[in-house]
Structure formats: C-alpha cells, structure tokens
C-alpha cells in the first residue's frame, strides 16, 4: 500500500470527529461547533488532499416577553430580539485542491413577535458571505425581510404565511443573464421576493392535505435588455395534494431565478408518488 493511501485511510482515525455545544446564559443559547476530518478529491485531476469540514451556529437573544411566575400561560406574548449566525466550510491542506466553499457565513438580526390573536411575525436584516479558499471567488448578498404566519387561520389546523424580502443578488454564473446583457459586466442587482404558503388538512376521502405555495421575484430597476429577455420577473406556483401513506400528487408551473434553482422541490408540471 502506498504511503499516501495509507495516510488517507487512517486520517479520519488519527483526527477524531470533534463536536460540542454550549448552553450559556439567558441572553445567548444554542451555540454549537462541529469539525469533521475528510479526504477531498479535487475532481480536476490535481489529486486528493486532506482537510477539515466545519460548521457552527448560534444565536444571541434578548427576551422582552412577559416574565410570568405562575402557571403555564399558552397566551403569553413572545417578544424577542435575536442575532443569529451560522457558518460552514472546508479547510484543505492545499487550497488549490479544495473545490468546496472555504466559508459560507450567514448573519441575521431580527425581531420576533407572537401573540395568540395576531399570529407571529419576524423581521430584520440578513447577510450571507461565501468564498473559496483562495478568496478568488467571493459572493456577498444582503437585505431585509419580514415573515408573517398564523395557525388556525380559517380552520382549526390550517396555516397561512407570507414572507417578503428585498435584497442584493450576486448574479455570478447566471448564463441567461449574461446572454441577455451581451458583453456587459454581470453586476449585482436588487430584487424583491415574496413567498406565500397555505396548508389545509382537508381529510376528505383519499385526500389528506392540500398545500399551495407561490413565489414571486421582481428585479428592481431592471435594465431594458433584462426586461426584454423576460428575466426581470420570475414566479413559481405549486399545488400539492397529500394522500394517505405519504403519497401525493403535485403540480408546479412557472420558473425560479437562476440563483434559486436549488429551492425548487417539484419538477415543472405534474409530479406524483402514488405507490
């Protein structure tokens, strides 16, 4: 056995998985860090290297809710300011052989407010930064948003929600946009996006649940060529009928923007699982 093969085989044993979490004071909680030794195949013919995969998350919360000292009050108002962070990435011994993100870091600051009559609303600022290990491919997106939701909206166990955001989009790699712009540089732009969700547990004959989701994206002040190409707006509507035993029929129509393709759960048209 070659020395390098032996080393790669033993590396996970030599460096044990390392994870811990901490519960701290009332103002901060749920912090956790995970490390995982890995062997990375660069997939571009430059060979393998060893590395460490990591992820961490946590939040700092300031609770303004009422401090009731009696019994449990299900009608208690929840009012909290939260700063949440999470990150993940891969550090390789050789940065040229690391095809993964060196760092993907998310930070958000929001207010959370919930009462039994009005429902729950959260809103605030968010940002996301990602880079490869050589820092030659970086992206920064940020914006603000608010989300509202109400359980038992029309029935006793249905749910309605609306999520609205406005933020900066990095179009790196968007071939459709590049084609529309011709030789012009792919600059970042700002975009509105809305998402509506309604779920109803119908429980009628074979139908168990009905779920409707609609997403809408609108570029702010889009250049004429982008409007002309019809890529300043995108929307996607999905109706899913849940049947007994985890079976379903779903129908999707529309299209998501380039940077949100991975958010598409069902293919366009009909999808189903019927047996």
């Amino acid at each position, binding site marked *: 056995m070659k020395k390098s093969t032996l080393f790669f085989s033993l590396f996970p044993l030599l460096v044990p998985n390392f994870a811990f979490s901490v519960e701290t004071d009332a103002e901060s909680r749920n912090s956790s860090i995970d490390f995982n030794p890995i062997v990375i195949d660069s997939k571009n013919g430059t060979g393998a290297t060893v590395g460490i995969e990591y992820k961490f998350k946590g939040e700092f919360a300031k609770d303004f809710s009422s401090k009731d000292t009696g019994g449990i009050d*299900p009608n208690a108002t*929840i009012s909290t300011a939260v700063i949440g962070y999470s990150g993940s990435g891969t550090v390789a011994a050789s940065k040229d052989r690391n095809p993964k993100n060196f760092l993907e870091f998310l930070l958000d600051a929001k207010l959370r407010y919930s009462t039994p009559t009005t429902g729950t609303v*959260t809103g605030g600022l968010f940002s996301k930064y990602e880079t490869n290990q050589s820092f030659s491919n970086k992206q920064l997106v940020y914006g603000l948003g608010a989300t509202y*939701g109400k359980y038992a909206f029309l029935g006793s166990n249905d*749910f309605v929600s609306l999520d609205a955001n406005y933020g900066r989009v990095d179009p790196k790699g968007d071939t459709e946009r590049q084609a529309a712009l011709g030789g012009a540089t792919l600059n970042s732009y700002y975009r509105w996006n809305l998402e509506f969700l309604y*779920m109803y547990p119908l429980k009628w004959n074979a139908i168990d649940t009905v779920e409707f989701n609609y997403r809408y994206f609108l570029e702010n002040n889009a250049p004429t060529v982008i409007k002309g190409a019809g890529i300043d707006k995108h929307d996607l509507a999905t109706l899913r009928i849940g049947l007994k*035993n985890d079976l379903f029929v779903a129908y999707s129509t529309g299209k998501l923007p380039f940077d949100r393709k991975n958010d598409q*759960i069902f293919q366009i048209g009909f999808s189903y699982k019927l047996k």
Partner: protein
Amino acid sequence: MPAPKAPYEWKENNACTATYKVLEGDKFLDQFEDADIPFSKAASVKLKNLRYFPKTTGNTKIIEVLSLEIARKFITDIVKVFTVSKQNTATSSAKIITSIAEVFADGEKTIKDLAEVVDANIKFPDES
C-alpha cells in the same frame, strides 16, 4: 466528569401520552391517525412527516413562524387536558413555547424528541 445523560425513554407517562394525544387527537392538532401511527410506534416518527410540516418549501423563516404558532396551539391543548405547571418556576411561559417551537422547526426531530422537551419544561400530575 458528569455521567452521560441517559437517552429519553418513550413510555406511557403523562408527558409522552400528552404529546401523543395532542398531536393525534381530532379535537387537537390532528397530525395523524392512531390507526396509522399507534402510540407504541410513534416515538421514531419524524416531525417532517406530520401534516403541519411544509412539503412545498424549505423556507426556514416560514418554518420558524409556523413552529411558534403550532407550539402555542400544542401547549394550549395540553393545558386543556392536563393540570400542569412549570418544571422550573423561573422560566417564563414564552420561553417554554419557544423551546417547544425549536423542536417543531426541525423536521428531523422525532415525536420522542418533542416529548423529551415537553417533559423537561412541563410538570405533569404523575410527577407531583
């Protein structure tokens, strides 16, 4: 060094039966039918397989809001059925709702995981 925490046991105590009853009951959250998921098999059922968990979106902000809403309804229903109090009187009701919401928000958590957080926060008559 403290002894490792023993895994939570799914059994017919008030915390587990209340969790099951409120999740299953037609008059409560009605998340499944007892014929499909009897009490003895409920422990390992993942929350993402229940009716409340969205199947058309992975939007974490919507799931966060939904989780707070369903956690409040869950506790409202528990209080209707059982005479309960706080395990820790210094904890606010809002914090208990938030702790239970954190479980509802994670679809990979199981019904047993939910019962464990319920038991840690809510004191039932069989613990008096």
